[in-house]
């Protein structure tokens, strides 16, 4: 075991002490209402005792090893489970002790993340797992706190539904969500993205051939990239009708300019030295383009592809606010908001977020595969 592994940093000490003290305090107070102490609910008692013992032990310097860290993880997750289960039986009536215990569970979870960040991982694989686990735990805790706070305070469903309700709605209306996803993502977004990026790429190569156009179009392209292009949505809906082609048109316009600007600056990225080398090989324009300049432009092109992956989804959804057939993610969001079915809206947003992240991740993965030689990927 490494020395660094054993020595907690200042934050960990504060967090563990807070966990212990908060859990101890919660043991002495009420969970729900005025006459419902924590100790009358077995699982909350177990959770509080666990947290109190672990927090105090860690603060006093006892369990600062791997088994201790794992115990911290499990007790924080168990307390989260106990809290969620209990609060769903007594909605909107939780009082001081319950929130003290919630805070204790949260600081305990944070303590584990703090320990995780300090672990000296052996090997690249373990490091990667830890780097993935930290943001994942953060996300899980966000969801846990969201669930507890919403049910504990009895936040009205219209304002903010709990994650469990959103999940229920999500699993309960898969056919609707799938139809919307098909209409918006598989038709409008994918077609628009491919056409917009393709057109931007081809025009960029043309522009690159003519220096006059490069000097004339690039400043305009840069300016247009900063404009609120999404405003053309109503015009496109007017021109191309309510169905998906109008949304694809919006996506094409939105994705075209980032691609154009990035590809043109990418094509300028190869050094004079490298171009001279190609000349000494007696390479023609096309050979230089395919073997030197396009590969050098790859990082720029992928930058545009990544920017466009999120722009495309936004463009398609917002364009649907201006008129659609009765299917599509933007349509569903705007109508369900009107009917105050907020959990359906959140389910739709969850689908959109998942699709957006996967799309982005796919492009990023492709970038890693294709530009493995670039310094930014080797680091």
């Amino acid at each position, binding site marked *: 075991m490494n020395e660094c592994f054993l020595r907690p940093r200042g934050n960990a000490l504060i967090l563990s002490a807070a966990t212990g003290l908060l859990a101890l305090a919660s043991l002495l107070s009420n969970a729900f209402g005025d006459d419902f102490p924590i100790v009358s609910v077995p699982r909350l008692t177990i959770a509080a005792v666990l947290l109190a013992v672990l927090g105090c032990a860690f603060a006093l310097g006892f369990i600062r090893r791997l088994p201790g860290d794992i115990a911290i993880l499990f007790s924080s997750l168990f307390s989260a489970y106990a809290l969620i289960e209990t609060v769903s039986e007594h909605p909107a009536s939780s009082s001081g002790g319950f929130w003290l215990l919630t805070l204790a569970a949260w600081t305990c979870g944070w303590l584990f993340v703090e320990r995780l960040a300090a672990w000296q991982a052996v090997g690249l694989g373990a490091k990667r797992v830890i780097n993935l686990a930290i943001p994942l735990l953060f996300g899980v805790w966000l969801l846990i706190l969201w669930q507890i706070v919403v049910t504990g305070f009895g936040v009205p469903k219209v304002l903010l539904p709990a994650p469990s309700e959103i999940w229920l709605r999500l699993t309960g209306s898969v056919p609707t969500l799938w139809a919307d996803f098909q209409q918006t993502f598989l038709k409008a977004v994918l077609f628009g993205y491919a056409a917009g990026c393709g057109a931007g790429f081809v025009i960029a190569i043309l522009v690159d051939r003519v220096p006059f156009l490069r*000097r004339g179009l690039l400043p305009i392209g840069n300016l247009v990239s900063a404009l609120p292009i999404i*405003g053309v*949505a*109503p015009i496109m809906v007017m021109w191309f009708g309510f169905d998906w082609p109008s949304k694809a048109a919006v996506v094409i316009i939105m994705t075209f300019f980032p691609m154009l600007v990035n590809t043109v600056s990418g094509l300028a990225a190869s050094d004079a030295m490298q171009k001279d080398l190609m000349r000494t090989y007696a390479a023609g324009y096309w050979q230089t383009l395919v073997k030197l300049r396009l590969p050098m432009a790859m990082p720029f092109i992928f930058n545009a592809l990544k920017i466009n992956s999120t722009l495309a989804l936004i463009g398609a959804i917002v364009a649907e606010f201006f008129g659609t057939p009765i299917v599509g993610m933007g349509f569903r969001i705007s109508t369900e908001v009107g009917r*105050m079915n907020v959990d359906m809206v959140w389910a739709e947003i969850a689908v959109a977020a998942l699709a957006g992240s996967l799309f982005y991740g796919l492009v990023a993965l492709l970038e890693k595969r294709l530009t493995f030689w670039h310094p930014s990927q080797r680091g």
Partner: protein
Amino acid sequence: MTASTLPASRSTNPFAGLMRGTTGPVIVVVLALLAIWYVAAVVLNTPFQRDTYARANQSDVPFSQLVGDTLAQERPVLPAPHQVIAEMWDTTVKKAVTSKRSLVYHTWITLSTTLLGFLIGTLLGVLIAIGIVHSRVLDKSLMPWVISSQTIPILAIAPMIIVVLNAVGISGLLPKAMISTYLSFFPVTVGMVKGLRSPEIIHLDLMHTYSASKLQAFLKLRLPYAVPYLFTSMKIGIAASLVGAIVGELPTGAVAGLGARLLAGSYYGQTVQIWSALIMAALLAGSLVGLIGIAEKITLKRMGMAQ
């Protein structure tokens, strides 16, 4: 061979020098775009015009009259540039600023939302960046979420945030500004994290030998280093903030703002109104980015960092 590669002398051709910079080509491209716009307007508006002639039993209309009529329709498929400019002149200069028909009034509504959202977003972005730079746990746990927060099509939530906050009694500027905030905090966070980390190790070590505290190292080394990055990301942030403000205005039932003008125009088929709102939004975006660019130049010059 040599004659063609030699640069043309300025004395013989005064336009040669102009065309070598960026100004000349940009002007030519803009003129070309305007020409394409006019041609497209004529082509796109012709079917409706022919319909009108047929209904009025006018046959063999001369081509010049057809072109003139297509460029002067009341609700054209594609309005000509001069129609848009005339509409903008009508709604900005000829109307009282307080009138609901004035484009200045709507622009001001959008601008105030944009600025409020941008201000909050920039502050939030800088604060998150400071946290990320100084805490390893925050860096590892928050940074991936900051990045993936932008893969979520957040504009999709815009109508919900506004309708829901309206239901609780919060209305007006703040709900719309929240969307702007969400869109503009991201570039600022990413840029500031990069900027605050840009001082070289050797400079941080120097601060260490001076026995500077973390706060002193932050104020005297990291912050000045981050200023150029801050301005670059603020330019992206304010453009994003404007988009957020416009989309935020869509679900409020088309009451006020450039987004509302777009929506109202699309409801009533007022294409000229849509285009003038669009051009106004473009002008607004251009001038906001330009203003930040000027502020950047002045600040960097005073800090001695200008190139």
